[in-house]
């Protein structure tokens, strides 16, 4: 008895165990006589196995906080978030931000962080006479003061190795309370600002993210309850280099 002819779809279904047993037996018979098809079937089965293996850690791994039940209340009220996004966009006369990034909750928050930081940078960094409230000469006082206002122990990164010296810092209104801005400048007077804010519940750590607003580039990230955003009108590679140094100093 010669093996019955087999369609491509049946070969696939054989791979996935989606054929009725009788038909599967006939396909097996076909494969015994068709080396090339048999090799393909074997390779596809191995693909399935490897897919399972490769991504298994995702099934077993911890679900990030922002997707967890504890955060549910936040993702239960998307309407409010859309309202916030709409308000933000209405208020903002500045174009160039991706509305896309407004959609998701945590992303909206972190994005808001980047935005506020960029605006603060644009407002204060050109300032000649009053760029900061407390100068670097009173660094100790600056740290104590802002730590107290933000309700958490802040650290001021030192960026001399990157070519930037501390100008000083100031207190700013953040999304939900006080925020801090530290200003640095290099020998040519090019200024960078580091914006720091605290959130009550966040325990998240994110990767560096980058946003660009007109000339101001911002690298921003969350680290536990603290959100950081480093802004500057410099090229992205340079900003990344400094952001990396900031991160390393804050997370020795």
């Amino acid at each position, binding site marked *: 008895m010669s093996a019955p002819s087999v369609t491509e779809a049946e070969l696939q279904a054989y791979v996935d165990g989606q054929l009725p047993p009788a038909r599967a037996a006939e396909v097996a018979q076909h494969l015994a006589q068709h080396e090339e098809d048999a090799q393909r079937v074997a390779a596809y089965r191995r693909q399935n196995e490897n897919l399972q*293996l490769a991504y298994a850690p995702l099934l077993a791994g911890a679900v990030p906080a922002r997707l967890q039940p504890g955060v549910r209340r936040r993702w239960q009220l998307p309407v409010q978030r859309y309202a916030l996004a709409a308000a933000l966009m209405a208020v903002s006369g500045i174009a160039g931000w991706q509305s896309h990034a407004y959609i998701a909750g945590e992303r909206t928050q972190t994005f808001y962080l980047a935005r506020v930081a960029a605006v603060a940078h644009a407002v204060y960094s050109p300032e000649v006479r009053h760029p900061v409230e407390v100068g670097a000469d009173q660094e100790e006082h600056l740290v104590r003061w802002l730590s107290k206002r933000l309700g958490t122990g802040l650290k001021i990164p030192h960026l001399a190795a990157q070519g930037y010296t501390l100008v000083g810092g100031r207190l700013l209104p953040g999304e939900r309370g006080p925020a801090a801005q530290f200003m640095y400048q290099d020998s040519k007077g090019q200024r960078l600002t580091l914006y720091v804010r605290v959130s009550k519940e966040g325990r998240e750590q994110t990767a560096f993210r980058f946003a660009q607003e007109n000339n101001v580039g911002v690298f921003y990230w969350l680290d536990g309850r603290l959100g950081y955003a480093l802004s500057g009108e410099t090229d992205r590679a340079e900003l990344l280099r400094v952001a990396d140094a900031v991160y390393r100093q804050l997370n020795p």
Partner: protein
Amino acid sequence: MNRPASDEFATQAMQYIPRLRRYARALTGDASAADDLVQDALERALVKQKLWREGTDLRAWLFTVMHNVFVNQVRSAAVSRTVQLDDDAMAERPQPQSSDRLEIRDLDAALQALPEEQRAVVLLVGLEQMTYDEAARVLEVPIGTVMSRLSRGRERLRRLTQGLPETAPLKVVK
């Protein structure tokens, strides 16, 4: 006419999050983008939860919602400017557990080289182990389309991972 309470729906949806993450990770090739996608999908699912009929397959429905979000993201020119720059992604890189380390690592890269529509089918069937019928419903395409994408996707993946030429020589059809 009882609508499931939001809480109840969320609780039910919750159990599928690990599967949604796994699929999203394989689909996007990026841990951070994957979680963004899952989060967007969950939010969309909550907004649209009334469209889900209780008693029907919630997993398939959630995958459908996520697929639509994904397609919209891919289609919109406004792909996120968020850029992954540190090694967070490495933490959840596929972990080779067999001796076929290379093959598995290559698999992740090769998947990203597939056209998005083939990749989705290969993953729904091979990773998520959906029936062809379920995959067709999730992707909202005819089952014949699922079959042809599956066939082409798998063959292309095989060629990519085995270092064969990308397209097979034409077969003589008898």
